[in-house]
């Protein structure tokens, strides 16, 4: 990772100094071990701020929505999931491919700080490093080594596109693609009876505080004005009454149908851990089943499944299941 980080800095400095771009979007290391956040670099001398470590999880693509207006061209770094998000923005005609200079960073997984915390490894932790498939937790006076996948985000373990599908310049070598089954949780829920499922989701939705982080982080949520913020008509009431929360989550997920790139950011940022991925993946799974496999964000030229049709489509609403 260090090698790639060096390349990042060098490339960023190069494209800035050559005038190819006037802004570089990357990640910067914070004060604490799990802080790696988006940084905006407009001066080649600041390229040294760039970092590439196991916590560079935020997707930089959505910043283009604002930054693009005042910049000639913006360079940015994409992991596999970020590139899918970018393509979704392309499909929604929200960004101009020409305005982005994309560095691809193949990614074999990032570390979920909550998993570290749950394992009790967080107290006094200074930083985490990776060598091969092994993580090293570095403390003031000791070190601890473990197998990396234990601490990866769930979304990384099921990642199907770790190598960016769109880029101008590749940093590093493509990594092997080896995803775990992603529909396990969906299938498990599908196997339950309808009331059990309701109780499960009722519990999840009741926790929602409507912070809208899931929406704001999502690369497929790029409306100028969100339907949930509109006051006329008022689709969504501001009270976090359960039915309003249900309306929010069902509608949010449904707006994602055929558009969700399955980057898992919504579930990551949710402060109350609502398993939003299961909602999104249920829709992905149904689309795959009913209308053929479709991976949003892979090809922005493809017509998304819910704005097209085939005269021979099944009428799945005729399925009747026992109550």
């Amino acid at each position: 990772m260090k090698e790639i980080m060096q390349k990042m800095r060098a490339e960023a400095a190069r494209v800035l100094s050559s005038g190819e771009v006037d802004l570089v979007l990357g990640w910067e290391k914070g004060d604490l071990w799990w802080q790696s956040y988006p940084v905006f670099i407009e001066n080649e001398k600041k390229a040294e701020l760039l970092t590439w470590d196991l916590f560079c999880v935020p997707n930089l693509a959505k910043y283009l929505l604002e930054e693009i207006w005042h910049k000639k061209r913006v360079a940015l770094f994409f992991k596999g999931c970020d590139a899918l998000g970018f393509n979704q923005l392309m499909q929604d005609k929200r960004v101009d491919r020409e305005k982005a200079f994309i560095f691809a960073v193949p990614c074999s997984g990032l570390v979920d700080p909550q998993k570290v915390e749950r394992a009790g490894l967080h107290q006094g932790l200074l930083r985490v490093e990776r060598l091969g498939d092994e993580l090293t937790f570095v403390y003031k006076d000791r070190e601890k080594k473990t197998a990396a996948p234990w601490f990866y985000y769930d979304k990384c373990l099921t990642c199907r596109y770790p190598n960016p599908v769109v880029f101008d310049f590749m940093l590093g070598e493509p990594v092997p693609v080896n995803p775990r089954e992603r529909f396990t949780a969906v299938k498990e829920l599908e196997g339950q009876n309808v009331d059990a499922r309701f109780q499960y989701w009722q519990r999840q939705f009741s926790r929602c505080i409507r912070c809208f982080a899931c929406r704001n982080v999502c690369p497929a949520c790029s409306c100028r004005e969100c339907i949930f913020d509109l006051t006329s008509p008022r689709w969504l009431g501001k009270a976090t009454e359960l039915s309003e929360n249900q309306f929010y989550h069902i509608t949010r997920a449904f707006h994602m149908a055929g558009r969700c790139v399955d980057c898992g950011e919504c579930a990551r940022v949710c402060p109350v851990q609502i398993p939003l991925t299961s909602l999104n993946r249920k829709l992905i799974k149904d689309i795959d089943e009913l209308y053929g496999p479709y991976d949003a964000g892979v090809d922005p030229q493809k017509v998304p499944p819910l704005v097209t049709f085939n005269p021979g489509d099944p009428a799945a609403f005729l399925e009747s299941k026992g109550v």
Partner: protein
Amino acid sequence: MQEIQKARLPQLWEYLAKKAPLYLPQQEDGVINFAPWQEGARVKLESLNTVLPPKSIVFPQWETYLHFTQKARELKLTPTKEPEGSYILFGVRPCDVAGITVLDRVFLQDPVDVFYESRRRCTIISLACNEPDISCFCSAFGLEPGFAPAADIMLWDGDKFLLWQSLTEKGETLTHSLTDLLEVPTPAETESVQCLRETAATVQEQKWGLDGVKERAKDMFNAPIWDSLYRRCLGCGICTYLCPTCHCFDIGDFSRGERGERFRCWDSCMYKDFTLMASGENPRPTQKERVRQRFMHKLSYFPAQHGLYGCVGCGRCVRKCPVNIDITQVIKEAGGSISCA
């Protein structure tokens, strides 16, 4: 000072819950929040901060305060009954107790918020932190992880037992009713409290000096730091909703034909419609003004108005911000000094 064996806690909770609704940190789907105790509750005292601060109990995310019916041209209003105030908050960490005192400044000053006032009649049983997290910085604001002066009863974790000290009359009364469950600690145990308090204070590695921060923060309105912070802000409401001191709310109506109700609900200065006016004008047009407002309010405006910081250093926003916007960076920018212990 008294103590209770940890093994007897369920007994204690059962007893307390019979007296009044009892809220304590419980785990549901891996998320720990304050929730009413009932048989079989998965209580998690040992975790530090709950996801949502106990603010969500004293100042719930939404509450109806008025019912109305409108027929033809006749409007009838019925205020909602004041909420029940005789409940117990158990296991509140000292920073969150301090957060409630900040809310008191807002809601209990004239004009007094009767709903809040009623809910504030609750009994707060605070649990001291033995080992604060690396993202905790309550000491920066002169708070002590091992002690919550505004609580009714203070508890310290002595491994197998909790040391018990009532701090107020309300706390004393409650303590008296628990003679069957409480025991008298040995002098050594009593003394260990002092030790726990000191250790907790030293665990927080960073020693903050906040001299002059309020004053300097006042001049930060045009500081360059906002430019770098706001650009990455997603505009979500995590920091404000999870904050134990944020108290902004909105008022809305829900109606079903001729009858309806008026409610208030949390609002967030991070949202772009927070300051949106009916005319379409927005005095905080970009995220920059919003991010600045949040920090300036905590570090400058609130202290200027109420004499204390609007931040208690619980670290929730630091931990949960999806893009790691970190208030301690702002404090440093405002001249907060750090020396490592």
